[in-house]
């Protein structure tokens, strides 16, 4: 049952004019909100010109198809960090996996990524003593 607090529509105080638009063209127009931890992330990142994952929880969004930056994927699923890889020059890459379609991608770490999350991701194969112990015993 609808509540009627006012006797007529449009007779109250008119809505205040908003001079800051949060969505389009405003001060947060190019920021994005993390799909996993809801952190507001600025696109400027130290060490890279293209931020593509949340610096806090390392989650990303499936927007690119084959070429980085083409925005051609229509999946738009959340991509979780799956593993850690290393380039031959020693730079760490986060392997992301889309939770809705299973697509994989590799992204460089940024300068302000959470070091604890990065090390936890790198230590994940060694955290299970069953598999890692079996591999060490087989050497």
């Amino acid at each position, binding site marked *: 049952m609808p509540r009627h607090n006012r006797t007529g529509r449009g007779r109250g105080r008119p809505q205040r004019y908003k001079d800051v638009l949060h969505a389009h063209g405003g001060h947060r127009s190019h920021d994005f909100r993390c799909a996993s931890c809801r952190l507001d992330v600025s696109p400027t990142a130290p060490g890279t010109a293209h931020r593509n994952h949340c610096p806090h929880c390392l989650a990303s969004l499936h927007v690119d198809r084959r070429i980085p930056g083409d925005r051609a994927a229509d999946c738009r699923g959340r991509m979780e960090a799956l593993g850690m890889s290393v380039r031959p020059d020693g*730079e760490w890459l986060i392997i992301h996996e889309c939770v809705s379609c299973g697509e994989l991608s590799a992204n460089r770490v940024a300068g302000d990524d959470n070091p604890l999350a990065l090390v936890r991701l790198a230590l994940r194969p060694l955290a299970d003593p069953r598999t890692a112990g079996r591999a060490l015993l087989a050497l």
Partner: protein
Amino acid sequence: MSNPTSPHAHHTLGLGTFACAWCGLTVSAYASDGVPRNHCPSCLHSRHVLDHVEGGASDCEGRMSPIAIAVLRTGDWRVIHRCVRCDELTSNPVCVDDNQLILMRMAVRPLAQPPFPLEAFGTL
């Protein structure tokens, strides 16, 4: 697609073996426990024959080198392969007779060259 003169045509002909694209080892297509194999157990290299973006078979057929180890929630390891020709990524489960030295070397490689000092984690 399935060129009978290509060096890995044994796999499509159903002979049960294929030649590794990197080390040349002749590998049986099935592991000892009957699981179909998609990478060499000696050097863990694979070949790009399936297209995971579009689905179906791929005409790239490039060599795929192992770049990372991923761990599922069940604790099973998977090998992440990257195609050296088109940079496509795939993940494949680890077989029982895979080279444990290369698996462990890939698992500890991030810790050998950390981008930041790891001494601060000793105080946590």
